[in-house]
């Protein structure tokens, strides 16, 4: 694997809904500036935004990182816990553990992980109860 030509990193604070989406917005702008096609940029932005919301809603805080290569972008969302007890259940459409105030904002419908999976070309999730969660999404810049 060659070295990425651009690395972006953003800190995500638990419960910080005011700034939720800023990382995705900046990653989106960067990809637009380097000429990645609009439909790919849109998928990266949506996948990253879902991930950002998940970290802000469910975790103690974490980071969103974008590793941009000429041919593809890798997004890594990592948090400090509390982790996911049953990953298989968590990636099912409609399953959610989000509290009511999150649902009042229009989120927490159990669509986040499935949407991240369908937006990306490659989706990996690693987590266990009591530890952090790490999600890696890869997006090819050109359609295969």
């Amino acid at each position, binding site marked *: 694997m060659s070295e990425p030509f651009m690395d972006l990193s953003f800190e995500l604070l638990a419960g910080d*809904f*005011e700034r*939720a*989406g800023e990382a*995705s*917005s900046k990653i*989106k702008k960067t990809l637009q500036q380097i000429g990645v096609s*609009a*439909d790919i940029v*849109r*998928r990266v*932005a*949506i996948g990253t*935004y*879902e991930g950002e919301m998940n970290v802000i809603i469910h975790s103690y805080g974490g980071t969103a990182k974008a590793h941009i290569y000429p041919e593809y972008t890798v997004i890594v969302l990592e948090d400090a816990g509390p982790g996911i007890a049953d990953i298989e259940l968590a990636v099912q459409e409609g399953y959610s553990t989000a509290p009511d105030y999150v649902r009042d*904002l*229009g*989120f*927490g*419908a*159990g*669509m*986040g992980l*499935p*949407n991240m999976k*369908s*937006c990306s070309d490659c989706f990996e999730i690693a987590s266990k109860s009591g530890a952090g969660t790490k999600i890696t999404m890869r997006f090819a810049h050109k359609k295969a």
Partner: protein
Amino acid sequence: MLKLSEVRKILGARVLCCEEILDDVEVKNACGADLLSDVLAFTKEHTLLLTGMTNLQVIRTVEISDLTGVVFVRGKIPREDVLRAAAEKNIPVLLTDHTMYEACGRLYQNGLPGCSRSEGALLNV
């Protein structure tokens, strides 16, 4: 396809943000939803969002998903900071007194389609 200026007329809407670009913005589809997760999962680019939610996340969702603008239904006026965020991102914001059902119905009647998967969805799932 409708211009946002036509959408404004059809809905008898007030313009809260970006009035100067309404003639330039073309809308291909519309989506009526309060569930922003659904908006992220099921809309296409150049879609107009109609919603009863008036929080900051609506503007973020419009920005992230490349939507053309937002119509707040049932006369719900968003907070100042929400309109400021829309202005910063150049996102047109309309306000109609019609309910969600009526606003969507009027646009549909005027030929604006929805975002259903059968019409070629975003995600090819």
